C-alpha cells in the first residue's frame, strides 16, 4: 500500500462574501496526496493556499467563507459531507495543522508538556501518567530535552516553540499534516534545523504532509511533488523534478526568474509584470493572461483544461510548448 492515495481533492470551489462582492478564493482545485508523500503548495499571498488547507480541515470561518462545490476524499470518505462530530474526530486524530505563528497554537499559561499530554488524552484513552510519558517522548522526538516538560511557552525561543507545535500536531500520529508556512517566521539557521527535523520525522512516522509555502527553496528541499497555485487555481502540478526542471507554466517560470539566484551573476532580475488579478473580478479563461509574456487571444477563451504532460505532470496553459 506504499502509493495508495490518502486524500483526493476534487473540483474544490471556495468563495468569501465581502460587502457586496464575492471573493473567488479557490476555483476548482484538483489534487491528490499519497501516503507518506509531501506535497508542496506554492503561491503568493492571496493565492488561496491557506484556504485550501482550512477547507480540508473544515475550519473555514462560515460566514464569510462558503465551500460552493467539490469533494475532499480522505481515506474513502468525503470530508465535506461528514457530520460535525465525525469531523472533529478526524481533526487532530487523523489530520492536524500547524501555522506560521506558533503562538496562535500555544496556550501561554499552560506548560508545554501539559499541552501536549492533554492533546494526547483528548484523542486517546490514556491515564494522565501514560500521556505524560508519551508527551516527553514527543518532545524528545522533535529535539527538545524532556526536562523542559514543565516550562511555559514564553521560555522557548521561536524555533523551539515551532518544534513544540509540531510535537503537539504529531502527538496523535495523524495520517496527514497540514503545515502552513511552518518556517517562514524563523531565521535561516533555525529553519534549517526545523526542516531537517521534519524530514526525519516524516520518514519515521510515515505522515503525509501538505506543505504550504511561498519559498521554492524550502519546496526543493522537502517536497516529493509540487503544486503551484495562482488566483485560486492549481496552474501546475507534478513531481518536484518535473516542476523545477521541466517548468511548463509561464507563472512558475516567472517565479523562478524573480528569485535572485546565488550562483548567477546577472545584473537584473526578470520580474513578472503587474500584479495578481482582483479575486472579486476574475475573468474566464486564463487568470494569468494579463501578466503572461506568451499570452494570445486564444488564452482568453473560457474552459481552461489541465493538460497531462505525463508522469502526473499537469499544467493549466495552452502555450506550454513555447514555455518549455
Amino acid at each position, binding site marked *: 500500500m506504499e502509493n495508495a492515495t490518502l486524500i483526493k481533492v476534487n473540483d474544490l470551489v471556495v468563495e468569501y462574501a465581502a460587502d457586496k462582492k464575492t471573493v473567488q478564493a479557490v476555483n476548482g482545485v484538483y489534487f491528490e496526496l499519497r501516503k507518506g508523500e509531501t506535497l508542496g503548495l506554492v503561491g503568493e499571498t*492571496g493565492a488561496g493556499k491557506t484556504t485550501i488547507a482550512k477547507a480540508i480541515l473544515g475550519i473555514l470561518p462560515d460566514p464569510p467563507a462558503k465551500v460552493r462545490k467539490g469533494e475532499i476524499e480522505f481515506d474513502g470518505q468525503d470530508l465535506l459531507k461528514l457530520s460535525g462530530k465525525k469531523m472533529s474526530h478526524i481533526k487532530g486524530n487523523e489530520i492536524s495543522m500547524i501555522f506560521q505563528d506558533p503562538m496562535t497554537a500555544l496556550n501561554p499559561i499552560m506548560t508545554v508538556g501539559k499541552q501536549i499530554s492533554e492533546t494526547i488524552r483528548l484523542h486517546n484513552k490514556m491515564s494522565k501518567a501514560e500521556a505524560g510519558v508519551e508527551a516527553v517522548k514527543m518532545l524528545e522526538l522533535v529535539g527538545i530535552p524532556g526536562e523542559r516538560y514543565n516550562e511555559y511557552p514564553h521560555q522557548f525561543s521561536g524555533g523551539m516553540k515551532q518544534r513544540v507545535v509540531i510535537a503537539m500536531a504529531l502527538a496523535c500520529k495523524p495520517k496527514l499534516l497540514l503545515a502552513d508556512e511552518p518556517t517562514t517566521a524563523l531565521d535561516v539557521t533555525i529553519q534549517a534545523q526545523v526542516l531537517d527535523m521534519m524530514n526525519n520525522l516524516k520518514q519515521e512516522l510515515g505522515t503525509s504532509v501538505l506543505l504550504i509555502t511561498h519559498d521554492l527553496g524550502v519546496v526543493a528541499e522537502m517536497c516529493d511533488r509540487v503544486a503551484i497555485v495562482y488566483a485560486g487555481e492549481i496552474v501546475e502540478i507534478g513531481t518536484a523534478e518535473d516542476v523545477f526542471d521541466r517548468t511548463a507554466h509561464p507563472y512558475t517560470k516567472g517565479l523562478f526568474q524573480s528569485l535572485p539566484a546565488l550562483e548567477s551573476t546577472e545584473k537584473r532580475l526578470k520580474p513578472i509584470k503587474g500584479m*495578481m488579478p482582483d479575486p472579486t473580478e476574475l475573468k474566464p479563461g486564463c487568470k494569468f493572461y494579463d501578466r503572461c509574456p506568451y499570452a494570445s487571444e486564444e488564452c482568453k477563451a473560457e474552459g481552461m483544461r489541465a493538460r497531462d504532460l505525463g508522469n502526473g505532470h499537469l499544467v493549466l496553459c495552452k502555450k506550454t510548448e513555447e514555455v518549455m
Partner: protein
Amino acid sequence: MARDAKSNKPKSQAIEIMKRLAKNKLAMLGLVVIVLMILVAVFAPWIAPYRFEEQNMEAVYLSPCKEHLLGTDKLGRDILSRLIYGARQSLRIGIFSVAIGAVLGTALGAVAGFYGGRTDNIIMRILDIYQSIPGMLLAIALAASLGPGVNNAIFAVGISTIPVYSRIIRASIMTVRDKEYIEAATAINASDFRIITRHVLPNSFAPLIVEITMNIGNSILMAATLSFIGLGAQPPSPEWGAMLSDGRNFMRDYGYLVIYPGICIMASVLSFNMLGDGLRDALDPRLKN
C-alpha cells in the same frame, strides 16, 4: 489585499466611515434625535408656543390640554415651551463642558503619551490623584465653590472629565507612537509638533471621538444633576435638570412635571450613547472590509 484602485475614485476615509455608520440603525436613530434636538434648540423661539419665562397665574398646574400640550407648572409656565428652550441649555452645557474637558485632556494626554518617561509619570500621577475623587463629587465641589450658575456648572463638569480624555488619548498615542510611520516622519525631519498633530493625533482620534460623543450625554446628565441639587442653572432658566428639581415636590399630584423633563434627559443621553456606540464600530479599522 490586492484591491486595485483602478475603479476607485479618490475616496476619503470620512465618507467610508459615514457609510459604515449609516448601516447601524440604532446609531442613525440616535443621530436623528440629536439633529432634531439641535434644530429645536436653534429654532426654539419660532417653535415654542410661549416664551419660557411667560407666567400665567390663572393657569397653574394645568394638566396637558389643547392650549398647553404638556401642561403648565406652578407659575403657569408652559412646560412644552420650557422643554424646547431647555434643549438650548442642555446642548450648550453638553457641548461646552465636553469641549473644555476634551481639549485640556487631549493636550495633557498627548504630551504624556508622546514623550513618555518622566513627563508621562508626572502628568499621569497628578491625574491619578485627580481621579481618586469621584467625578460627580468633584463637579459638585467645584460648582459649590464657584457659586451656582450655568457657566460654572459647565466649567465644573468640564474640568472633572479631563482625566478620562487624557487616559484615552495617552493609551492610543502610545500604541501609535511605536509605529514605523512615526519613525519615518522623524527621518524626513518632521518636528515633534508636526509629528503629534499630523501623524499621531489623527490616528489616535477614533476612541476620542467615541468618548466625546458618549460624554456629551453624560455631561448633560451631570449638569442636570447639578441643577437638580441647586448648583447649576438657576430659575427661571428652563434647564431640564432644574425643571426636574422644581417639579419634584409635586411629583405625586402632578407627575407630568417630572416625567417630561426626565424623558428629555433620558432621550438625549441615550441618543448620544447610541451614536457613540455606532461610531466606535464605524471607526474600527478591523471592520474596514
